[in-house]
């Protein structure tokens, strides 16, 4: 047990190292650097001045020196300056991280609210019409790309029906902190959250359905039934207790999907969060922001996966054996 946790934690060190190296070297290889991207269009800046600027910023050092600097500063929460936004990356991210967290948490909560009951219904009444309907929906959720689905949602609810706002995170005319402000925030969240959550249900429904179908044939369930335990109690006490526990452990795996999802959702619903910032920075070659974002979300994904692995190994001892 302890050995597994230790081994699983230690593997994170090379993972983070490889991630940071990949990010750093790829960012270095990107066409143009921070100086060219910020002064290219300015005719008053001579190449000599740009060269001086590079010297001052340390862009002429060898790559491993720069890498060392970057990692050292990043650990202390300093990701340098954004060259298009003219402010420290950290404060730029801080201004947007709240929106993305709100979106992601919303998606997670709605996903579970939809997926858990549906998974239980499909598993308990296998081959009923409800099960068939849920399985069909699940196939659809799996096969539809998120950006296609959110575009259709945007088209339907914002354009044709006009129920939800077209984009943004809040109506800017409303005063910050008032009750209306919160209402407006929620209104702007509904569509992106629903688009993300309706497709994210796939894994949970699939897992829950299969697990319940497996578990309900196990001997301890038969024993419970044979003793005359009412059917509803067989499910709540014996089957669901077994099947729901791993779902909680999957939370860490969800982080990777949420990061990817937030890129599309924020782009399509022009929602000012980290995902939108990421795409804008990629397009604008603002590589301090890009590297910071990939490093932070990559670390979040790696740590999340590790936590899920460890929790799962506690919940399900069979995993530990290898």
């Amino acid at each position, binding site marked *: 047990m302890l050995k597994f946790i230790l081994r699983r934690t230690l593997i994170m060190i090379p993972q983070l190292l*490889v*991630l940071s190296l*990949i990010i750093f070297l790829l960012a270095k290889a*990107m066409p143009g650097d921070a100086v060219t991207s910020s002064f290219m269009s300015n005719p008053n800046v001579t190449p000599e001045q740009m060269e001086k600027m590079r010297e001052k910023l340390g862009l002429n050092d060898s790559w491993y020196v720069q890498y060392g600097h970057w990692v050292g500063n990043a650990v202390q929460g300093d990701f340098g300056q954004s060259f298009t936004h003219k402010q420290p990356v950290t404060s730029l991210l801080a201004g947007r991280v709240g929106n993305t967290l709100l979106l992601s948490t919303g998606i997670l909560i709605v996903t579970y609210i939809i997926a858990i009951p549906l998974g239980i219904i499909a598993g308990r009444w296998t081959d009923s019409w409800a099960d068939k309907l849920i399985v069909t929906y699940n196939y659809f959720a799996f*096969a539809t*790309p998120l*950006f296609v689905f959110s575009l259709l949602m945007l088209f339907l609810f914002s354009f044709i029906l006009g129920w939800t706002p077209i984009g943004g995170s809040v109506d800017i005319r409303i005063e910050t902190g008032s009750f209306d402000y919160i209402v407006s925030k929620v209104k702007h969240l509904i569509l992106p959250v629903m688009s993300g959550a309706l497709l994210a249900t796939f894994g949970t429904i699939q897992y829950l359905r299969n697990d319940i179908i497996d578990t309900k044939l196990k001997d301890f369930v038969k024993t419970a039934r044979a003793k005359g335990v009412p059917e509803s109690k067989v499910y709540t006490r014996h089957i669901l207790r077994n099947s729901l526990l791993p779902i909680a452990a999957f939370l860490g795996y969800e982080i*990777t999907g949420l990061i990817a999802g937030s890129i599309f959702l924020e782009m399509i619903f022009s929602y000012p969060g980290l995902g939108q910032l990421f795409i804008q920075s*990629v397009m604008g070659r603002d590589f301090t922001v890009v590297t910071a974002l990939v490093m932070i979300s990559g670390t979040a994904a*790696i740590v999340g996966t590790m936590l899920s692995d460890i929790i799962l190994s506690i919940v399900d001892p069979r995993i530990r054996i290898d």
Partner: protein
Amino acid sequence: MVQKDERVTIPDEWFKPKEKDSDIAESVVRPSLSYWKDAWHRLRKNKLAISGLVFLIVLTLFAIFGPVFSPHSVTGTDYPNQNKAPSAEHWFGTDEAGRDVFTRTWYGARISLFVGVMAALIDFFIGIIYGGISGYKGGRTDTLMMRIIEILYGLPHLLVVILLMVVMGASLTTIIIALTITGWVGMARIVRGQVLQIKNYEFVTASKSFGAKTPRIIRKNLLPNTMGPIIVQMTLTVPSAIFAEAFLSFLGLGIQVPFASWGVMANDALPVILSGYWWRLFFPAFFISMTMFAFNVLGDGMQDALDPKLRG
């Protein structure tokens, strides 16, 4: 469920002993089925998987011949006819430059299928070599190779792919390279798991005891028996590669206008979606979803069909 009220009547002659006939006693009644024939028989019974297969065959035919037979070209602009709704002239309507959406949809199918199949094939070769060596050699080589995989597996692929695309520049080749750099890991894991399991089976030991050399064992014993899960994995790699191409193009990092891919077409439709030009989003979106769906049901069906344990 057993029907309680249904009585089964058994005729008396069923209880008589069967006459002995030495001629037919030893004959094999059913023709022997090869693994692949057997798998095909089982796949054929799965209606959903077969309809997926039929859809993909039709799509492939349209992807090859659609642009050829269409009177309009993929990139040919026709500004007076921009954003026209579907009609007899333009079956799927036109886009903002008057380009024919019907032709572009099939051209997009070409790109999508090409990217998907190429990514799956390259994954397959890298995976077989890496996973094969790791599983067959075992010991310290295996441990080292698996550690590398474990590290790579944890990285967030989407972000790495986007970074790679920014660095390498947008083109069909770079999409395939970026997808395979991150994609081979899954395949290698599956091949290794299979090889590890099969190399200890008796028929491999028997082959060794007859003096078979390593290349022969790999070629004759290991590879054919690992094919089932590998083919399933390939069927599932194709849709994820198609999806990845679509989102890269959608983000503007993939195929570039005026050339068409489903992702590009969806991206083009984004700014005008609120003007009601529904056909510009509907057709690429419909075909992306249907293709992913078809590959997934086919992959699921193949998984069941190729599993020798389910052989009845």
